[in-house]
């Protein structure tokens, strides 16, 4: 038993709180740990693990097809060493270990870990403050999206140069695979990560997330996952598309391990982040913030978290099974030994479709969130917006097999899956209704965030309508696996998802950085990218209609024209995105200083000062009214009311 000592206390928000004994300076061992020690730990342990594995593996080890196993074991050891070493080096295990030995975190420790008085150094540490985590997420996501965008440019260059070939088929295939999965991961994170972490706790009037240390954990697991994905490019690459269908994936070079480890780690990161966001939203809303007073963006993030929570484990297990097949010679997906390729497809798409909504719902929600502010009127039919989100979440888990109409796994199942898939157009339609209802008769304050919403809704309509063809089995019998599909999901994920994220970043930029996103450069970038986007993907629709399969390096001459146009469009997107990126960087460094509430918003996150203090709110706010309380009484309504009264009077006198 511990010896009784005099209990120290600390004043937290005006009350005396007894403290556990403080060991050393505040923060303890965390004082010495940062991103640098993480890198040292990761690279060091990776090198040691790889070296030991290379020594221990007999050089004769080979798999059933007589390929040597040594590279597989060594690469796996290196990846595991990297993750463990990096997390060790950055201090992820300090908290759990302190919990086990019973050396609890004091208030001073917690403040150090939240980055108090650390200045810019806090962005390089295992910092628990949700605002720091949000900024860190933003930077990492932009790096990842930039990497994937670069690959997209290379892919389009190859496809545009129809007279020659720039890359080997193997490298081309590894580019499309890496581009796909890097974009998917980046898009999953791009709203929920930066905005979900930075904005949501403030929007609901909380001081931090429910589990601040888990917040840091989810971020740094994500950071640990990204280099593994990039490293696979140098180990033979992911030559199987982003969906890495088995058993093609088991033929792939060892680079596939990079994909599998990335997904396994990223799925943990997503699950942790989802648990954290959901708990925060459910238990930490400000006093008086009932569900009808909760902003729609919070609903969007909550919905994405639900889907992330139940769907990602399926993805994770599909990759664990694939990894076991590769490393331990099991036969989950090997048809020669009783494995089934349809098992992989089912597990994969059980994630694969909810994941689309994990991307779409938050960026739709952020668009709906900012519209009332710029149109100076309430969100049209808040209940329908909520119903739309709930409907999408409810149906999201029941539609996965529409990716498998043409696999022949269960032809009879095509009927119910077509039904559930087409039903999803109803809740998505609700969200469109809310958007156009909010535009209705609104005086548009045409700043960049609102203008991006026009682009989002335009793209979403095109993506939605083309999605209807694909949800229909007969039409899908022509479109499945063609460029039409590629164009469709780029309209959804990029056209609606990424442009929505750009709207959200432009909107919250003043709160996150204290400066305005430069209106002029930002708009030029946005609209250049928008025009390029239409050129690229509308001509890609044409290629699909003509019958060009997706993921091909070379094709018949009949597809040349649409591919040339598509490539030109892609370069325009690239230029537009670079301009937008330069707007972000320049504005961050030297933009116009913004006041704490430059858009005149009524929601909680804008009521704090900028830069936001560590505890967000010195006094926790109390919510007394519905969100989006903008607007003046409708003159037409008054007129109608008087007519109604007239009618009633007449009816009464008759």
């Amino acid at each position, binding site marked *: 038993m511990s010896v009784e000592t005099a209990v120290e206390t600390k004043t937290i928000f005006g009350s005396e709180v007894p403290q556990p004994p403080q060991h050393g300076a505040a923060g303890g061992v965390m004082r010495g740990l940062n991103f640098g020690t993480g890198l040292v730990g990761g690279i060091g342990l990776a090198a040691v693990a790889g070296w030991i594995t290379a020594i221990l593996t007999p050089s004769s080890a080979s798999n059933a097809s007589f390929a040597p196993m040594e590279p597989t074991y060594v690469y796996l050891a290196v990846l595991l060493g990297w993750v463990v070493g990096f997390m060790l080096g950055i201090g992820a295990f300090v908290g759990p270990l302190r919990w086990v030995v019973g050396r609890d975190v004091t208030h001073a420790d917690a403040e150090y870990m939240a980055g108090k008085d650390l200045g810019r150094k806090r962005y390089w540490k295992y910092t628990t403050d949700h605002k720091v985590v949000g900024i860190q997420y933003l930077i990492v996501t932009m790096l990842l999206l930039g990497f994937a965008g670069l690959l997209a440019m290379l892919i389009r260059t190859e496809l545009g140069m129809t007279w020659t070939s720039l890359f080997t088929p193997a490298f081309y*295939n590894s580019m499309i695979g890496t581009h796909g999965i890097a974009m998917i991961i980046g898009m999953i994170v791009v709203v929920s990560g930066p905005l979900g972490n930075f904005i949501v706790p403030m929007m609901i009037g909380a001081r931090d997330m429910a589990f601040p240390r888990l917040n840091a954990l989810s971020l740094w697991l994500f950071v640990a996952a990204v280099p593994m994905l990039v490293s696979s490019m140098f180990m033979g690459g992911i030559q199987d598309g982003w969906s890495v269908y088995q058993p093609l994936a088991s033929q792939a070079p060892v680079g596939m391990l990079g994909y599998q480890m990335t997904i396994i780690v990223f799925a943990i990161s997503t699950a942790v982040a989802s648990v954290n966001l959901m708990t925060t939203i459910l238990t930490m809303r400000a006093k008086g913030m009932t569900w009808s007073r909760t902003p729609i963006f919070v609903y969007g993030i909550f919905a994405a978290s639900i889907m992330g929570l139940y769907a990602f484990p399926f993805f994770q297990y599909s990759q664990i099974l694939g990894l076991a097949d590769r490393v331990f010679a099991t036969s989950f997906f090997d048809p020669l030994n009783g494995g*089934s390729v349809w098992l992989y497809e089912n597990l994969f798409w059980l994630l694969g479709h909810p994941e689309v909504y994990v991307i779409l719902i938050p960026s739709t929600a952020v668009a709906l969130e900012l519209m009332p502010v710029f149109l100076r009127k309430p969100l049209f039919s808040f209940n329908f917006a909520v119903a739309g989100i709930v409907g999408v979440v409810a149906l999201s888990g029941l539609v996965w097999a529409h990716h498998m109409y043409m696999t022949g796994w269960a032809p009879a199942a095509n009927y119910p899956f077509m039904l559930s898939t087409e039903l999803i157009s109803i809740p998505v339609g609700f969200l469109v209704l809310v958007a156009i209802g909010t535009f209705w*008769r609104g005086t548009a304050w045409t700043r960049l965030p609102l203008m991006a919403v026009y682009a989002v*809704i335009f793209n979403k309509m095109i993506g939605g309508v083309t999605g209807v063809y694909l*949800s229909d089995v007969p039409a899908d019998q022509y479109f*499945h696996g063609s460029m039409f599909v590629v164009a469709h999901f780029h309209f959804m994920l990029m056209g609606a998802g990424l442009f929505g994220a750009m709207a959200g970043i432009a909107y919250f930029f003043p709160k996150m950085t204290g400066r305005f996103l430069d209106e002029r450069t930002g708009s030029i970038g946005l609209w250049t990218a928008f025009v390029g986007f239409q050129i690229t993907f509308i001509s890609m629709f044409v290629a699909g209609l003509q019958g060009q399969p997706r993921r091909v390096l070379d094709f018949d001459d009949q597809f040349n024209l649409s591919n040339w146009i598509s490539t030109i469009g892609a370069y325009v997107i690239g230029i537009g995105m670079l301009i937008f990126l330069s707007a972000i960087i320049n504005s961050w460094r030297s933009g116009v200083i913004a006041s704490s509430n430059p858009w005149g918003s009524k929601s909680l996150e804008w009521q704090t000062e900028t830069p936001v203090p560590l505890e967000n709110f010195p006094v926790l706010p109390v919510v007394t009214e519905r969100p989006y309380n903008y*607007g003046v009484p409708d003159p037409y309504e008054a007129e109608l009311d008087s007519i109604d009264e007239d009618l009633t009077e007449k009816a009464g006198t008759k």
Partner: protein
Amino acid sequence: MSADTLIPEEPEAPTNRPPSMQRVRLWLQRPYARKVLILTVLIGFLLLPLAWLLLAGMNQTGAPASEIMKDIEQTVFVFTLVSIPITAFVFAVLVYSLIGWRQISGDEPPMQDSPAIRTNTIGVILWTVSSTLLAMFLVVWGLVELAQITANSYGTISADEQPGQKSSEIINVTGQQWVWTFEYPEHNGLTSDILYLPLDRPVYFNVTSKDVIHNFWAVELGVKIDANPGAITQTGVTANKLGTFNVRCAELCGMHHAYMQTQIQVLEQDAFDSWVRESGGKKTS
């Protein structure tokens, strides 16, 4: 209308007119409402050619060469038509919001707020009902077409006319990296790397793969099914147009996926028979 049925004009009794109808009538009198509706019609007519353009894109290499492909194109055509009104309306609101309703630029939030329309019961009901009806139409259309395509693929085999008898042809399709092999088990196991099909006769495919997943896509015939290792998938088609068409692999299958394509030759029965004879297969008896 004859004169004796004319009723002398009377002021309408207000109780006969439901207030909601009254509201709709008043609403239609507002200038912006009419303009948005006109814009909707305009945009709708602008989008209308898409219905034919989509088919033109699909027909570039000779499609439709089967009933299945005709069904597919009909579906695409109808879906385009029914999506145009709703798309046109949304685009009209977007456009009118930019050019019709008031706009403010500048650095400061607008001083004057917009009308606080929190909801509009009639509008919401209209939207819900119409979008639900639309979705239901799509579902029903899809289910019916799917049943029809299934019938056209392999459902028409009657009990007394099993496959293997004269009128139909069975072809075993095998994908492997990166070639297609077509085996005609009813003709001494004749194999070919070009798909020869007899005109106007049902053909049934047993599709499988020797290594990874491929996808057997007979483009102009509208046939598509995965070739899975460890499983046999089945489909079928009746080609009704002579000519040369394309088979492509529509599932990434490794390095030379792009080159995994071959031809379809749809031949008259005589020509098909002589091809079978010349290639050493047994003549269809």
